[in-house]
């Protein structure tokens, strides 16, 4: 039982690492690097308010192609 628990913890940690790696790879793609994207909504809202602009929000994903 303890072995099963430890294996599942290791699998969860491995998956978390994979998800982080996927994000890092996604952020290296040309669409992500060719534009000065703001990556936090709160930062985008603050800047939009300061500059009197609207926010263009591009939603993508990294967990799957």
């Amino acid at each position, binding site marked *: 039982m303890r072995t099963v628990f430890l294996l599942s913890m290791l699998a969860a940690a491995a998956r978390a690492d994979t998800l982080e790696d996927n994000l890092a790879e996604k952020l290296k793609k040309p669409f992500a690097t060719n534009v000065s*994207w703001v990556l936090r909504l709160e930062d985008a809202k603050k800047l*939009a308010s300061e500059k009197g602009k609207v926010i263009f929000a591009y939603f993508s994903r990294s967990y799957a192609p």
Partner: protein
Amino acid sequence: MPYLNVMTHIEDREDDELLYDLDGREHPSFFFLDAEGEVLARHDADDVSVKAFEETGARVKRSLELRKKADAGDAAAKIDLAIVQGELGVLEFSDVEAAIEGATLAPEQEHAVGALRADATVSDLTLVLKKNRDDAAMKMVAEEFLALHGKGTHPARLANRRFYWTVLAGQSIQRKDAKMLRDAIEALRAVAGPEPADRDAQKLKELEEIVKGLEAPK
């Protein structure tokens, strides 16, 4: 202000499911938001032409102009704004109804409000089914959807459209109603998008076979 949101499924990551909060589903999805994070317009990600973006820009401008007029007390603008905000998911249908109460609506406004009403109905019935999916509940939902279909008012939101038209497809088959089934297939094809998932493509293929059988001369 360009903002990039990448859905990662990393646990507890900030705004990881923001797209779902905005009633979006597909990747990529494009939205225009104001500085409060409220939706001003959505842009169809299948069309990245300059013309399409100009049209979305016009919708953004319209949203902002309506807000300005509504804030200044323009009653007609308040109604148009409420309808637009209902369509964008910024307002609940009950708030749209409150905003338009007592007003005389133009035909296109009536049609838009009808779609919003249909969305609210489908959303409510979806919640009912989450608690209870027995035969009586399913029958009640089917009857409500048939009533909406009979009025020609259909939900506009993506999640609602899939459920609504799937139920109607089932009803069409039971009733041997080829016309309604064709409508359902067309609507489900639009929901599935230009590159449907295998499961959706298979389902559409099955429905096409059924409707051909219903349409075949007897």
